């Protein structure tokens, strides 16, 4: 309704009730097999063409995937990612019109340990999926989520990004690739089969404790997403992939956008829901399925027999109000019934957003969130919601000065920041740290307390942290990276008056 330049030029026509005996709107010959939107009836052939074309157009329009690149497909077994897998397979097959030109690999992350599946159930699911992967002929990797406990801390530290590849180089790259094509393409016989290694029970137990230390389901899901992403990126790095394809579809991304807003991730929306996500520097996350609604994918999978495997997740079979993610999902789907344009409107909104200020690749690592690796949005500006929350926290713990006869303090605009704000970190209770910090880098940071981790996190990760009963269950790589950053910021504080330029000596 309220969009600039949106003009309903044609008059309001009576909507014709679509029926299956109608002809396909595209080829006008064959009889229709499926109704996508109200009024759009397609026959089988045209639907398949439309579906495949969308995928190619998405990749071609954005020109991010260069020919010959190694791309990791993140397959969860659900309909969306299996559809993506089949599209890639189709696109690479020899008889495809305008072949796709990259080398894919598949990764499946087994999260059964978190959800509480037995070892037997997990093995069965993995075997089913592995059979599916073998049929494609691409190299595949099966990784258990428990491996997140063994990650190196380089995952959350910044890796240098490769040189910028502007669009003009794309054509050159394609040209080069076409010339050298026959020799370099990997042939199907060298598959790397990493069958699921035996996961020691202690690891599963530890992982469950970690997830269990978050008291609310919202925080648990958030934490799980973060860990999963770290594992994905790490695997991509070690196996030499430069891009990761995620199978998020339009419906899921619309829900994700709304969820991100309610979780306080407004500053990071473009990265969470956009086509490409470059927050990790050398690995770019790509979402080629973002134009497909869940309905279209379901139709396609059904009509063209694309197999998928259901794996339960943390919020399977929970009530509507169990977590914010779940609540948003049910809200959007219900609203979509009454207002069929809801999902596409939200999706279009996400296309118009961008990341705040500087590009994520160039920011100092200390200015990125420890968990979600996005730029921090906790700079306390005057009259911001963040400042208001800090003020509230502080005031709720201060005594009312009237009764005891104390002078009501005069507030000047200059000193309007709450007094708990003396250090650059964002916690009102953090006053003691500045004094403690003078004791040198080695002795001070003994155990990272909850308050200390807070300053390294963005707004929404701070909320997740608040819901956790203790941080000691966090994997070692996160804790050690936290300590390293704290030591570094203490060093910086000590010598701050002697530093000439900001950004000198960046990590």
């Amino acid at each position: 309704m309220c969009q600039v330049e949106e003009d309903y030029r044609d008059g309001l026509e009576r909507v014709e009730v679509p029926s299956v005996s109608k002809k396909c709107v595209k080829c006008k010959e064959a009889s229709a097999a499926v109704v996508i939107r109200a009024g759009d009836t397609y026959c089988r052939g045209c639907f398949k063409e439309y579906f495949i074309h969308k995928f190619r157009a998405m990749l071609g329009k954005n020109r991010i995937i260069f020919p010959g690149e190694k791309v990791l497909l993140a397959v969860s077994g659900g309909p969306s990612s299996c559809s993506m897998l089949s599209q890639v397979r189709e696109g690479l097959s020899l008889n495809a019109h305008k072949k796709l030109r990259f080398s894919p690999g598949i990764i499946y992350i087994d999260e059964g340990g978190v959800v509480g599946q037995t070892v037997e159930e997990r093995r069965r699911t993995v075997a089913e999926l592995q059979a599916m992967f073998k049929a494609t002929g691409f190299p595949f990797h099966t990784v258990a989520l428990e491996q997140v406990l063994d990650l190196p801390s380089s995952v959350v530290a910044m890796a240098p990004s490769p040189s910028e590849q502007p669009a003009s180089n794309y054509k050159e790259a394609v040209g080069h690739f076409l010339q050298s094509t026959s020799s370099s393409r990997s042939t199907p016989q060298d598959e790397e089969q990493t069958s699921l290694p035996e996961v020691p029970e202690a690891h599963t137990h530890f992982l469950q404790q970690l997830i269990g230390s978050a008291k609310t389901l919202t925080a648990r899901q958030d934490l799980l997403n973060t860990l999963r992403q770290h594992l994905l990126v790490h695997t991509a790095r070690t196996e030499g992939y430069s891009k990761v394809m995620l199978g998020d579809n339009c419906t899921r991304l619309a829900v994700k956008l709304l969820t991100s807003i309610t979780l306080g991730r407004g500053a990071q929306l473009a990265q969470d829901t956009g086509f490409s996500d470059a927050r990790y520097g050398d690995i770019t996350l790509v979402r080629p399925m973002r134009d497909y609604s869940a309905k279209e994918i379901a139709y396609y999978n059904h009509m063209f027999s694309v197999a998928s495997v259901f794996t339960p997740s943390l919020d399977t079979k929970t009530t509507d109000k169990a977590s914010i993610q779940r609540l948003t999902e049910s809200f959007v789907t219900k609203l979509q019934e009454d207002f069929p344009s809801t999902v596409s409107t939200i999706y279009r909104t996400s296309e118009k957003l961008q990341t705040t200020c500087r590009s994520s690749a160039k920011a100092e690592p200390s200015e990125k969130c420890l968990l979600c690796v996005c730029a921090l949005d906790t700079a306390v500006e005057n009259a911001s919601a963040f400042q208001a929350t800090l003020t509230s926290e502080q005031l709720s713990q201060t005594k009312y000065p009237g009764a005891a006869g104390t002078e009501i303090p005069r507030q000047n605009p200059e000193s309007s920041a709450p007094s708990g704000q003396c250090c650059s970190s964002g916690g009102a209770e953090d006053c003691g740290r500045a004094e403690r910090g003078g004791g040198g880098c080695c002795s001070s940071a003994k155990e990272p307390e909850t308050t200390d981790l807070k300053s390294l996190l963005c707004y929404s990760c701070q909320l997740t942290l608040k819901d956790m009963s203790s941080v000691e269950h966090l994997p070692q790589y996160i804790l050690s990276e936290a300590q390293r950053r704290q030591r570094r910021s203490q060093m910086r504080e000590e010598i701050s008056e002697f530093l000439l330029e900001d950004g000198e000596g960046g990590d």
Partner: protein
Amino acid sequence: MPVLCSGCKEKRAALKRPKTGHSLCKECFFWAFEEEVHRTIVAAKLFKPGETVGIAASGGKDSTVLAHVMKLLNERYSYGLELMLLSVDEGITGYRDDSLETVKRNQQQYELPLKIVSYEELYGWTMDAIVKQVGLKNNCTFCGVFRRQALDRGAIMLKVDKICTGHNADDVAETVLMNVLRGDIARLRRCTAISTVSEGEGVVPRCKPLKYAYEKEIVLYAYFKKLDYFSTECVYSPNAYRGHARTFLKDLESVRPSSIMDVIHSGENLSVRDGVKMPVQGTCNRCGYISSQALCKSCVLLEGLNRGLPKLGIGKHHRLHDKLLSQQPLTEREERKLKSVDF
């Protein structure tokens, strides 16, 4: 075992704060609430000493609490402001006439001058008459657009420098969500601003001192301070689209109480890509009010009402603006489109 107040740690706690979950006694809560509004005002530099400020009063809880707190803070911290009450009568029987009685009572209690402007005298239409013509679905659009102009006109009559409204945190969060659902990028950027930044004649800047106060806390404050207010829903509101956003927000609050502030935080940190088309501020060719089109929305809606074309103004009709301006008659097809009303 009685819970102690987490502020003074002496008295028994009388309530639990919805915003932070702390248990507080009455005095500490009053102090915290008032102090937060004060800090919001100071941090955002909303007022300057010597200004005349109009408090938009509807008789509901937000504006009653706003009037009370503004008067209190004005005295306590010597803002040096001259306060006045400004009220708008939309002409909704059974709702607005009752709430106006509350405003008149407020005027006496706080000893502030009061001015009431009505739609009838400004536009010649009451909301009841409008609903009869427009139906129950799009009437909130008419009410909102007319009220904005009515407030500005009333402010000019009163000769105030600024208007402050009682929008609370829940309202702002709802607006953010609603704008995302409607895809309204332009409004999305502006809606979290604490004060409007428009220049030009006939426009008085307006601000929201209660922007970070939760609705539940406002009710708690009014309850414990025994402030009197009128608390019925507008009879036409159940069918508004905003209701969906409101229900969603209430559910969110029940899952995680800090959600309201989180949504506002997200809204403040959104940034729009360059190259996205944004409306440009100009003036209406007919009445001179600010507008991003040739005719301001108010004029378009009024024209539609006067001509018996209720759908004029609902949906996009840029090309019709020129026709309206030059007083050309509309074609039959256009008239037919604009007449249809869905109830």
